């Protein structure tokens, strides 16, 4: 499955040897005293990408963003934009703009002045500033709010002013620090699409920091999953979800079950895993594995089917008892306790009304999945 996904995006710029990256981090380390926020990090970001940095708080994603904006300087290593080393260039001399989490709108200036602030610093003429500000106001549909002060605007409107202000100077790279964190769910979802359309139509490079994995999955072209100052994996949302390279990534993005076992045989990409209870499970691996090595079968709950009758013609079958059911409207998650005490999560779409659900608490059920649904993780 992972191969098909990989093949589909083979034409993307990060896989093209002839395209030079817009931004390069080369062995960048950032330390605050004894604490290492960024640990020897190397990564490339290409033009017109919508690049997401995702990770738990304290993983270094905000530090990375601040390094790019110029508010922090790397302890060692270098950061290049378009081939030029900007590691020690102050923020006001970089063609990078940032949209702040708090929006950081200047409270003593109206919307127009806020948006035109960056252009004024460049010493542009009044007419030029006016024209560009009007363009920006039209872009974010705030024409009639030009003379309002930030405190007279709603949260969503402020967010758009902040976006317009950071775009006014046509930056090579726009940094977005949790840009939608302060909006409610409905508005956030709508704004995600607006951001994507904007990024595409303006042809700009966006880099977003977020802790909301759904947001990262929706908006970005590639996601970098970070943990403790290290990038664990950089890939498209689909690869990150379907073919995570480690248990950390797999667990961080979405929900997952892990089943530990030993590799008993491998035929091409098809691996047979033996669990401690003697069960044989079949799973998928891109890489050859050592026979006898300890690995984890990683499988998403929505790929595990649950049934009251024993399924026929399936290799991967486990029996258990329903411990708990989490009903979330569109789907239900069944927590099934196996004989060995471990719990496996299985998710089913509620295509029928709740009253017609046939599986309930303490029912004996069978869990089953296809040969390629589970993947092997050795890390």
């Amino acid at each position, binding site marked *: 499955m992972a191969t098909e996904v990989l093949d589909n995006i083979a034409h993307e710029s990060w896989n093209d040897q002839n395209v030079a990256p817009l931004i390069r981090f080369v062995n960048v380390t950032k330390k605050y005293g004894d604490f290492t926020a960024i640990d020897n990090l190397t990564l490339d970001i290409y033009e017109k990408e919508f690049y997401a940095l995702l990770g738990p708080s304290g993983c270094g994603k905000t530090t990375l963003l601040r390094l790019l*904006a*110029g*508010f922090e300087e790397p302890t060692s290593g270098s950061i290049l934009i378009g081939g030029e080393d900007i590691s020690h260039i*102050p*923020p*006001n001399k970089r063609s*990078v*703009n*940032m949209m*702040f*989490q*708090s929006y*950081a709108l*200047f*409270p*003593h200036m109206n919307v127009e002045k806020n948006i035109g*602030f*960056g252009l004024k*610093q*460049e010493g542009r003429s009044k007419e030029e500033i006016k024209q560009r500000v009007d363009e920006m106001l039209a872009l974010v549909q705030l024409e009639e709010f030009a003379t309002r*002060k*930030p*405190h*007279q605007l709603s949260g969503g409107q402020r967010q758009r002013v902040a976006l317009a*202000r*950071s775009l006014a*100077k046509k930056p090579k790279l726009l940094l977005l620090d949790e840009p939608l964190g302060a909006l409610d769910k409905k508005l956030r979802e709508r704004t995600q699409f607006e951001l994507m359309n904007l990024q595409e139509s303006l042809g700009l490079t966006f880099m977003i920091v977020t802790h909301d994995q759904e947001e990262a999955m929706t908006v970005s072209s590639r996601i970098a999953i970070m943990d403790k100052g290290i990038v664990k994996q950089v890939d498209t949302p689909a690869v990150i979800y379907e073919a995570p390279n480690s248990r950390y990534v797999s667990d961080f993005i979405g929900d997952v079950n892990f089943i530990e076992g030993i590799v008993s045989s491998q035929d091409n990409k098809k691996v047979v895993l033996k669990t401690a209870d003697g069960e044989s499970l079949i799973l998928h691996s891109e890489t050859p594995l050592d026979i006898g090595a300890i690995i984890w079968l990683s499988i998403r709950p929505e790929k595990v089917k649950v049934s009251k009758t024993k399924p026929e013609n399936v290799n991967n079958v486990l029996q258990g008892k329903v411990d708990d059911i989490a009903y979330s409207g569109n789907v239900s998650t069944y927590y099934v306790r196996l004989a060995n005490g471990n719990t496996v999560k299985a998710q089913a779409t509620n295509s029928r009304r709740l009253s017609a659900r046939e599986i309930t608490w303490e029912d004996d059920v069978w869990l089953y999945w296809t040969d390629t649904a589970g993947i092997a993780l050795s890390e």
Partner: protein
Amino acid sequence: MNSHRFSWFNATSLTLGFVFLYLPILLLIIFSFNSSKLVTVWGGFSTKWYVSLFQNESFMNAAFVTLKVGLVSATIATVLGTLAALVMTRAGKFRGRTLFSGMIYSPLVMPEVITGLSLLLLFVALGWDRGFWTITLAHITFSMCFVAVVVSSRLITFDRSLEEAAKDLGCTPINAFLQVTLPIILPSVVAAWLLAFTLSIDDLVIASFTSGPGATTLPMKIYSQVRLGLNPEINALSTLMIIAVSVGVIVASILAKRAEAKQGLD
């Protein structure tokens, strides 16, 4: 919901409080319009003491010196105090930070007599002629710490990302301060200036130590006059000072309110 009611207890305590605070001042104002030369006996309404006050050259000179010292010292103290506040809230940890902040705040708790005496010793040791500039310097020294306290309390709650946004949009650090930080903290800076000005106008002890011939401030003048016996002219002068200070405070608070309403909360 009783707590919002104006009970008799609240009314009484408020009245008593105000009487305690303002009765002496009210009496002073009333007696400044007394036609009798005896300060404690009412002899009918008159404004003659105001007329004679404006004809009294030594009083007018003292008033002029006080005003000049106040304006100059408050302005310089505001600049220095604001810079000190910036360092204390922005510079993070640096060697000697605790010592630095302790030294800035120490004049707050230092007895005025000691501040005055030490400054006198310093000026004598340096061989400076005492006068307008020595008083001004002394006032800068002690009012600066009040400015630092007022401004730093505003800076602590100031959203740093506003400055970062300004730099991000092309401002040098100085420009970011002038175009973004200063306009936003301006009400606090103005309040600090007014406080410094009031402290300077008010000061008797330090001015006595650091003044010289030809540079007598109003409080010094009043104090020396009072020692020679009460004088209705002093009442008139004090009334004028009260009016000046009240107008200043009211104007400043209106300005601050307006600025806040205009900007909203940041």
